[in-house]
């Protein structure tokens, strides 16, 4: 056994890889340098040498959402300094880079193109292999970075069930191995992150909705309003959040009408209570269906990724419910859940290099493609 280990360690040294990841699918410009620390057959782990994320949130706040043209212009301006910054911070130069990984979808087309064209130019100029990365898969691969951080060489046991939950997506994915992705459920209308944004707008709380709603929810009562748990009892693993958004809207309109009648300024903690009850409803549905899927598919590990996985209540509830059911649950730390380039580099390790001429962006890329 020990001999095998030594042998594997030697191989590991030989193929030590340093990957530059580039991400620009929405409103974050990000570049990261990731080193493959260990690549035994059953254990893979990665070390983040640098991970620079430049968020445009402040720019987009005043518009109440991402403005595509502003986002693209901002990406163009920032992408080279961000890449240079990532190389500098990692103390590597272009000769040390073994491969370039770049997001080619899904996302905003104008934003995606900035990252993809930059990566293609660098691949051509530096003569490096380039890998096109599906952004949704990268949200799942963030879990491998988690393992690296604890410095314990522990394998992720397959099969894996992954919940990818973000502003644009809510999907349950079954993985029988590191490279296979099968979508078993998805939202039928709005993504979870999108309803957070829209409910924040209904409550006049501003943008982005996720962090604001959870902040208000902290001092609200999650049982104040009985919002629906849409299609929680359906037999499939799909989600629906549009009806929940409409219920919140009806409730807010009703409260405002009553206030007008009674000439009151505002009900006690009305925004906080709506936020808390709404958040509870989203978390209940997400956790219930995910746990049900882990049982039905008899998975050995649960992974949750994507921007909404930064939500505290969702993290706590998912962890504790998974524990109760005896399924190890990996949720990457918050900075790796929101959009960033480190998981893009990891996905680049698992992906196949293709000639740069063949790299094309696809705003509607599905998780089972590419």
């Amino acid at each position, binding site marked *: 056994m020990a001999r095998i280990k030594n042998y594997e360690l030697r191989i590991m040294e030989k193929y030590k890889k340093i990957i530059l990841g580039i991400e620009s699918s929405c409103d974050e410009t990000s570049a990261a340098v990731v080193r493959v620390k260990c690549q035994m057959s059953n254990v893979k782990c990665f070390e983040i040498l640098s991970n620079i994320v430049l968020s445009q949130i402040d720019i987009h706040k005043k518009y109440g*959402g991402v403005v595509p*043209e502003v986002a693209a212009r901002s990406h163009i301006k920032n992408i080279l300094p961000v890449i240079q910054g990532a190389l500098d911070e990692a103390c590597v130069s272009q000769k040390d880079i073994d491969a370039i990984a770049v997001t080619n979808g899904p996302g905003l087309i104008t934003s995606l193109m900035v990252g993809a064209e930059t990566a293609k130019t660098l691949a051509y100029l530096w003569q490096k292999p380039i890998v096109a990365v599906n952004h949704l898969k990268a949200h799942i691969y963030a879990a491998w970075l988690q393992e690296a951080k604890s410095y314990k060489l522990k394998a992720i046991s397959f099969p894996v069930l992954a919940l990818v939950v973000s502003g644009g997506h809510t999907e349950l994915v079954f993985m029988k191995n590191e490279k296979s992705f099968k979508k078993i459920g*998805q939202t039928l209308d709005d*993504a979870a992150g999108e309803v957070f944004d829209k409910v924040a707008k209904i409550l006049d709380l501003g943008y982005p909705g996720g962090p604001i709603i959870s902040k208000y929810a902290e001092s609200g009562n999650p049982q104040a309003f009985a919002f629906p748990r849409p299609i929680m009892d359906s037999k499939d693993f799909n989600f629906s959040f549009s009806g929940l958004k409409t219920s919140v809207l009806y409730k807010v309109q009703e409260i405002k009408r009553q206030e007008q009648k009674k000439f009151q300024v505002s009900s006690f903690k009305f925004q906080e209570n709506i936020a808390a009850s709404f958040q509870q409803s989203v978390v209940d549905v997400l956790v219930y269906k995910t746990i049900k899927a882990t049982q039905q598919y008899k998975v050995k590990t649960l992974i949750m990724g994507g921007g909404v996985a930064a939500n505290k209540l969702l993290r706590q509830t998912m962890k504790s419910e998974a524990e109760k059911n005896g399924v190890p649950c990996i949720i990457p730390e918050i900075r790796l859940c929101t959009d960033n380039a480190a998981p893009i580099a990891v996905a680049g390790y698992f992906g196949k290099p293709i000639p740069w001429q063949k790299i094309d962006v696809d*705003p509607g890329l599905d998780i089972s493609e590419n």
Partner: protein
Amino acid sequence: MSSIITHSAQETIELGKRLASKLRGGEVICLYGNLGAGKTTLIKGIAQGLGVKKIVTSPTFILINVYKVKRQMSNVKCLIHIDCYRIDSARDIENIGAAEYFGNPNSVVVIEWPERIKDILPKKRMEIHIAMKGEGKREISINF
């Protein structure tokens, strides 16, 4: 102009299907209505009526979804679902290439929040207003 009352999401989907049977390709349909009015629901019906197999989800995040239409005996090859909820100016929609689908004889374009891009909307278009009339009940006015 005709005005129809639906009493549930399912009825709205049925209306969308009936509407789809009248589409010949090249139509631009503008959908007006507040958050939660049921715009995406109506589009789900139109998509089902056209024979789109994929699940129609909200394109708020990526602004545009393109669905392939597999139905034979029709010119319509794709359904273009555009959502202007997040955008500020018509230029954004032009930049992502969405306006190129307007009037294309092989596509049906449906636009949510069209009031935000009124400068670039084609003159020949269908306008649908959805108004909420209490829980579940919707008044849908169609203007050819």
